[in-house]
């Protein structure tokens, strides 16, 4: 309890509150702008927040992450263009409801379901994270290796067209992480006599390139897209009676979202689609789905926001990112000198509670912003893309350069942008690559330490029941495309 008070005390400084609300505002803005996304905004924010206090910086990013998920729903409902992938399912019923003359009601349902889903996952987070961390404290290098391998295998089921391509991306990220001087032997690896590569590739330019610059190239293909907007005067909150009718849908979706979020590598998009499908499956009014069903809005919205909170559990408790955005938050934590994982919770619990508080404030923050600014946020989708994307590139360049005042990092950013564009074109995801890059150090360190302990005997990994459990889970995760067909046949 003392830690909770300390954590909230850290948070309740004027500067921190302003930064959290700033994060919420940026989150809703980027969420509402098709093409811009929370991972991109977090990647751009990292270099500018490095001089801030860690609590302020990470809280701002966590707030942005929560709000970004909701922001995408505004444009999904009003212009049928989901600002972010997790809002795709919201558009299925949100847009028809708006077209039927109830845009305010659709926005209100989405906002309240998002808040409730978010709060549900935060309650789970506050109990599950310390519990998970206390279990993980018992882990040795071999168990950590097993866990990291399991997390990498989960990339196979990450949203995207192909499991194999996701895995190739993830392992390429791990391989990129090996560039530079090998810490345990002092040997240079893959530096090709380039001095700047000795310390390895810095996260920031790679993240900015993969998420912001590659998106710029993609958007340059569709600069003249015209969208039709439905005018929303204000957001209309649902009545108690209506909420009472929807309570089971919200609760079920919140549970699904939190669970999906906790799984490494599974993100809000999968949660939203599952939330929508389950809402439809349990509904007494299936015929209304696709025509503006309230359940079709609250189902995905509660699930995608719950997944945001859920994804923070493995990120903070185990140091294993739960999604693309949390992989970036994890990178920011490392840059601020923290060691994400069980020690973060056991040594600095107040820090973790401060992040929890920031996410709680963010949930109410975007409800407030949604209430007063729905009309404005529906307009921002009309910012000319021909002026928006050059601005994004300017911020990308400044962000990459300012981190270590090196033009080499700007070239890395541009190269990552080009790589990200071609990867996306051929079905290789950028998010798995980032997760691999961030997990890479953990995988290699735990592997090397285990091999020293086990005297280079691979079979010794099978002496630990926890490692065996992770290897079995890895096997199931990798073979899921085959066995899921057997179990889930129509």
């Amino acid at each position, binding site marked *: 309890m003392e830690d909770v008070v300390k954590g909230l005390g850290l948070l309740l400084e004027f500067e921190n509150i302003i930064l959290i609300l700033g994060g919420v505002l940026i989150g809703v803005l980027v969420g509402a702008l098709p093409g811009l996304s929370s991972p991109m905004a977090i990647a751009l924010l990292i270099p500018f927040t490095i001089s801030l206090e860690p609590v302020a910086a990470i809280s701002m990013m966590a707030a942005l992450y929560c709000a970004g998920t909701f922001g995408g729903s505004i444009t999904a409902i009003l212009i049928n263009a989901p600002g972010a992938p997790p809002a795709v399912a919201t558009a299925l019923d949100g847009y028809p409801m708006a077209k039927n003359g109830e845009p305010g009601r659709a926005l209100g349902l989405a906002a309240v379901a998002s808040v409730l889903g978010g709060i549900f996952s935060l309650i789970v987070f506050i109990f599950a994270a310390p519990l998970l961390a206390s279990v993980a404290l018992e882990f040795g290098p071999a168990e950590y290796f097993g866990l990291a391998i399991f997390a990498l295998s989960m990339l196979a089921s990450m949203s995207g067209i192909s499991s194999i391509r996701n895995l190739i991306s993830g392992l390429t990220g791990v391989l990129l992480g090996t560039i530079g001087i090998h810490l345990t032997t002092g040997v240079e690896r893959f530096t090709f006599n380039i001095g700047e590569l000795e310390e390895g590739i810095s996260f920031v330019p790679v993240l900015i390139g993969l998420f912001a610059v590659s998106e710029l190239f*993609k958007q340059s293909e569709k600069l003249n897209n015209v969208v039709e907007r439905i005018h929303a005067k204000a957001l209309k909150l649902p009545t108690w009676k209506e909420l009472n009718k929807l309570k089971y849908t919200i609760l079920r979706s919140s549970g699904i979202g939190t669970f999906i979020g906790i799984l490494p590598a599974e993100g809000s998009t999968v949660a939203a689609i599952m939330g929508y499908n389950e809402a439809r499956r349990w509904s007494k009014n299936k015929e209304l789905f696709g025509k503006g069903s309230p359940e079709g809005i609250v189902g995905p919205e509660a699930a995608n926001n719950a997944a945001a909170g859920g994804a923070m559990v493995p990120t903070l408790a185990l140091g294993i990112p739960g999604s693309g955005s949390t992989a970036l938050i994890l990178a920011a934590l490392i840059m601020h000198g923290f060691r994400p994982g069980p020690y973060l919770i056991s040594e600095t619990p107040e820090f973790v509670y401060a992040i929890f508080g920031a996410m709680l404030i963010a949930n109410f923050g975007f409800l407030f912003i949604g209430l007063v600014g729905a009309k404005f946020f529906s307009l921002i989708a009309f910012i000319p893309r*021909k002026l928006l994307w050059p601005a994004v590139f300017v911020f990308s*360049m400044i962000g990459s350069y300012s981190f270590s005042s090196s033009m080499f990092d700007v070239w890395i950013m541009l190269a990552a942008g080009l790589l990200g564009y071609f990867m996306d074109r051929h079905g290789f995801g950028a998010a798995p690559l980032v997760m691999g890059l961030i997990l890479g150090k953990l995988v290699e360190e735990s592997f090397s330490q285990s091999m020293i302990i086990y005297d280079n005997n691979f079979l010794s990994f099978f002496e630990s029941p926890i490692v065996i459990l992770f290897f079995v889970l890895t096997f199931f995760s990798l073979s899921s495309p085959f066995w899921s067909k057997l179990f889930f046949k129509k």
Partner: protein
Amino acid sequence: MDKNKSAPINLGALINKTDLIITIVLIIIISVLWFETKNFEKASDLFANNIPAEMFPQILLIVILGMVLVLPFEHLLLKKNKKDIDSNRKKSIPNTTLFTMLLLTVIVAFSEILGAILTMIAICAALPIYWKEYRAKVLILYIIFFPLSVVFLFNFVLGVYFEPGLLEYILN
């Protein structure tokens, strides 16, 4: 007569040509990296107990290679799941995108000479004009005020150091 039985196996249909090219490119990259691992320096005797520096990258390269070899045939598996790997790449890359890439590469290449402010102005002018944004008033305001507000925010408020360049040289 059963057409399926008599039809010869069509190798072209088994292999996705685009993925075959990707596979060949990736195999070349993997080979280059593999030979690079062979050239890693030997660790000093002090670290003799540790596993060799090349071991982990080599394991990764082998695993990646194994998966890369599946790529040309993966479209068959995806088709069964009603996924089309070619949906995103049926059309060739538009010239606008290719030229945008080239334009940004050129601007980045000259950015050390131009300095931060002129680089920002170049980006804000070149991209919208190339993308056919011809509203002169909007464009002029954007080219002037956006870079200035960025300099004000980052340089004066947040203390980010901007590299001087041609503009500063001329002014001084």
